[in-house]
């Protein structure tokens, strides 16, 4: 039901004069909202609750159903769309009062946190989550920043999220995980509000801001990836809010206001660096685009005296960010380049080979279990975004033919131009999804580039909704319905493209899945180690068992590589090389974890340990030959897991300690 459906109080249009450029007709529509009562605001919570309950039901169906069922997808999307559709309608409608708009946006922001919250409400589950959670617990226990991380080394160099979570945990007495959830729900809501605030700053309208925010929320990271306990979830919020503050410097009318917003932006830009590397780099990229836009549009803006002054303040924000990034990446996080470059260089190299025809790309959705409509929508989503972006570009190119009544610097600020141009990077990243090395990086970038894309396409939505080419009421309704449907298609497609089913839904055990490999049996094995062997133990394990042991026992799994091929222990039935033995002994690795299912299953995620591992299959003999050696004592056995204790002393390895002891 739209505002137009609510009858106006008799004669109200005639009684209301035009005020502040607002026509009597619009004021009458506003009055209709007023007389409609607060039910549209209050309805947000029951609707969001009902949607969340359906999401919970879909998880229950997925957890208890058989492998080939798809009904949980349908129930999940019914629940999500139950909230999304009215939010799109009310958030983007012209007649919605600010308060109602904000309440629905708030309810939508809280609701979009629910799918990830219900996925693992009480323990970390995703690979990155376990790494960050362990980092936080270590930080809270010791008070020492920059501790090494067992799973993702680079995490230690960016302690912002861990500081906030450890502070909340220590101050309140909550567990680190519950503290993390509190932080995450706050920053998730703040992220959507930040996108709305940015849109309002750029376009001078809360409605446009809501459109910007809702469009941004369609990105593939918003519902799952940026709600997991990872540094990006906090970093992206600082990224958005820093841009929002810079945006408000363009909107502010006095020097003092600009300075205040600029200082706020500078503080946020300073703080984004110790939180997350990519957020800092993407923020810097946006500043570059805005600076270029400022230079290119300088002549036009110079004639407007209201845009003068405090350019240095905006410049200062960029300088603060650049200086902090340079210092932090040099002093505190010197491994950042080495960590990020393989994704970028590898992806580009692979793309080049793909282009030249010397290699085959990834097959998207190969061996997937997601329903066909999700796959179709995933391919349709960039196309819809492309069409909208094209329309946005046309608006930009023809802006002088249809001059806006507002000042040029307000209507087409460098912020808007720069952000729009930056948003086009989304399309530049799309080919990388076809490469193995670049796919992950491309997906990660969408959470950032979609903000620019949202700014680019925001003017198109009101243009389509308010002024469709067909003037009949039925045609207008059709156009608006189509607009909402397009948004839903983009949401479904992007979420599907962002994460596979194992991450999104609970379900039966899957070997080689970060999220579906965690079983009570694995956790019991890790519990046994934690309970009986005090202190942090160095272990050799496959990726999935290792994850469980890190989570439950604070163990330290080996990170195999070409220089330290610990995976060789699993890929043949001969004793390991002397070099490997020496490396294991000198690094004090004490336990070998063997999952018998390695011999019978291929990992769902494509690797047993890490990229670069041998491509041959693991046999049961490869796993069982440790029963025959006195340097590997079997100390734990369950149905699938064996735990061996290393004793390298017989090899004469340089262990530094005498590992052969007397009677316990």
């Amino acid at each position, binding site marked *: 039901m739209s505002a137009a459906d609510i009858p106006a109080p008799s004669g109200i249009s005639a009684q209301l004069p035009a*005020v502040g450029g607002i026509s009597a007709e619009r*004021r009458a529509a506003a009055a209709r*909202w007023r007389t409609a009562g607060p039910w549209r605001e*209050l309805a947000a*919570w029951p609707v*969001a609750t009902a949607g969340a309950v359906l999401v919970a039901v879909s998880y229950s169906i997925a*957890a*208890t159903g058989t492998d080939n069922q798809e009904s949980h997808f349908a129930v999940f999307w019914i629940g999500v769309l139950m909230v999304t559709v009215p939010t799109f309608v009310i958030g983007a409608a012209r*007649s*919605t*009062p*600010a*308060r109602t708009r904000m309440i629905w946006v708030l309810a939508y922001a*809280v609701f979009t946190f629910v799918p990830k919250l*219900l996925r693992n409400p009480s323990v970390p589950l995703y690979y990155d989550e376990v790494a960050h959670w362990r980092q936080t617990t270590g930080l809270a226990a010791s008070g020492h*920043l920059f501790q090494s991380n067992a799973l993702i080394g680079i995490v230690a160099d960016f302690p*912002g999220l861990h*500081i906030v979570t450890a*502070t909340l*945990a*220590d*101050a*309140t007495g909550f567990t680190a995980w519950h503290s993390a959830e509190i932080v995450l729900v*706050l*920053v998730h*809501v*703040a992220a959507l509000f930040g996108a709305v605030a940015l849109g*309002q700053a750029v376009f001078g309208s809360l*409605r446009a801001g809501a459109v910007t925010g809702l469009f941004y929320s369609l990105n593939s990271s918003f519902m799952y990836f940026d709600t997991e306990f990872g540094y990006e979830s906090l970093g992206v919020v*600082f990224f958005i809010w820093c841009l*929002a503050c810079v945006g408000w410097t363009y909107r502010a*009318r006095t020097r003092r206001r600009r300075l205040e*917003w600029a*200082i706020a932006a500078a503080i*946020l830009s300073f*703080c984004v660096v*110790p939180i997350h590397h990519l957020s800092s780099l993407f923020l810097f990229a946006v500043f570059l685009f805005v600076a270029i836009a400022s230079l290119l549009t300088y002549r036009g803006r110079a004639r407007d005296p209201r845009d003068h002054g405090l350019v240095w303040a905006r410049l200062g924000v960029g300088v603060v960010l650049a200086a902090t990034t340079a210092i932090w990446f040099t002093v505190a996080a010197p491994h950042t380049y080495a960590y990020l470059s393989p994704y970028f260089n590898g992806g580009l190299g692979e793309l080049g080979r793909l282009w030249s025809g010397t290699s085959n790309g990834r097959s998207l959705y190969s061996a997937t279990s997601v329903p066909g409509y999700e796959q179709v929508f995933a391919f349709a989503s960039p196309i819809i975004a492309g069409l909208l972006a094209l329309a946005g570009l*046309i608006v930009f190119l023809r802006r002088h033919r*249809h001059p806006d009544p507002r000042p040029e610097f307000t209507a087409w600020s460098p912020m808007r131009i720069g952000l729009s141009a930056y948003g086009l990077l989304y399309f530049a990243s799309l080919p990388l999804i076809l490469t193995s090395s670049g796919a992950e990086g491309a997906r990660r970038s969408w959470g950032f580039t979609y903000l620019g894309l949202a700014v680019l396409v925001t003017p*198109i939505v*009101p243009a389509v909704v308010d*002024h469709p080419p067909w003037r009949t009421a039925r045609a207008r309704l059709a156009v608006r319905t189509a607009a909402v449907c397009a948004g839903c298609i983009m949401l479904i497609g992007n979420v599907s493209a962002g994460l596979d089913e194992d991450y999104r839904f609970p*379900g039966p055990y899957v070997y080689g899945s970060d999220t579906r490999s965690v*079983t009570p*049996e694995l956790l*019991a094995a890790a519990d*046994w180690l934690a309970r*009986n062997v005090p202190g942090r133990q160095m272990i050799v394990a496959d990726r999935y068992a290792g994850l469980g042991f890190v989570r439950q026992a604070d163990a330290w799994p080996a990170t195999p590589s070409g220089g330290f091929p610990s995976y060789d222990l699993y890929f043949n039935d001969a004793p390991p090389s002397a070099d490997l033995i020496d490396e294991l002994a000198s690094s004090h690795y004490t336990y070998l974890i063997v999952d018998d299912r390695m011999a019978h299953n291929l990992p769902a995620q494509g690797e047993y340990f890490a990229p670069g591992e041998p491509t041959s299959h693991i046999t049961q003999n490869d796993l069982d030959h440790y029963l025959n050696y*006195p340097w590997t004592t*079997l*100390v*734990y056995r*369950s*149905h699938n897991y064996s735990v061996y204790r*290393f*004793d390298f002393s017989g090899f004469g390895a340089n262990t530094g300690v005498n590992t*052969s*002891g*007397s009677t*316990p």
Partner: protein
Amino acid sequence: VNASAEPDYDDYDYDYDRAPGDPADPLAERPGDKGGREGGDGGRDEADSGRDLRELARYGLLLAIAVLGYFVVPPGVGRAVLVLSTIVWIPGRCLVQRLGLHDAAGIWSVPLSVLLSFTALIILALLEYAAFRHVDFGPLPLWASLVTLAAAACRRWHGAGFARRRTSTSAAFTPRGILKSPLGTGAALFAGVAASAGILAGVYNALPGQPQAGYLQFAYTGPYAALPGVITASAGQQLAIPFSVTAVGEDASGLTVVRQIAGAAIGPAVPVANGQAVVDVPVAGGCSRYTFALERGGGALRTLDLYVSTGGSAACQS
């Protein structure tokens, strides 16, 4: 679609939530608010000053309550209620006030305050770590609140003043007015979220979850769990080796532990009681490999190894 025309976004916001000239919107500037040194204090008056002081006093009171809660109340929900404001609100809100954005930011000052609170915590932690190489996270938000509160008070003291805020009117005392006031809106939203969360939690817990496969684990326990590989003992010594057996979703009845040396059973089977079994093993000379089998009805379910040497581990490795 005439996409080349810049759309007219607005929207009925202007005549609904805001009277013309009302400074509640960030776009609106107050008469006389020329900014900073150019324009004085932006239209402050005595009433604003009093409200500012009251707001600072409220934060000071919240901080005092948080300090009390941190040191007196045991960890948990009770303490969290008392100290949460110093983590997610007071530092950021004071920074927003210090910057003078609490008026200009309007509704956005709320998420901005949360983020700036996190900023204050991060910066303070980094400074503390740089100074002491250690961060005490528990009292960190109390210090952050104190520092930012002092900064906000400093601004007030030096006369920069706080900007004028929209004042509540007598309409705020009507039921509808109370609901629309910031406090009423916040309380209503909190109640809505709490009710939704309660319903969701109830449904989530009532729904059937993932059926989990059972398991039977057999392991050393006590000091033998951390045995360092080949153990050294003297010939004839009697080792008492403890085992733990855990059965979840599996039959735990009739389990025994059988000791073997070189494949031959030695001694009677030891029954498992309450998930525990202690097996005595006489140490033979040289290097011996003992195998302990968890059995039921003569069938081995799990086995473990133990290498014992009377001549050091080298005797086994060779």
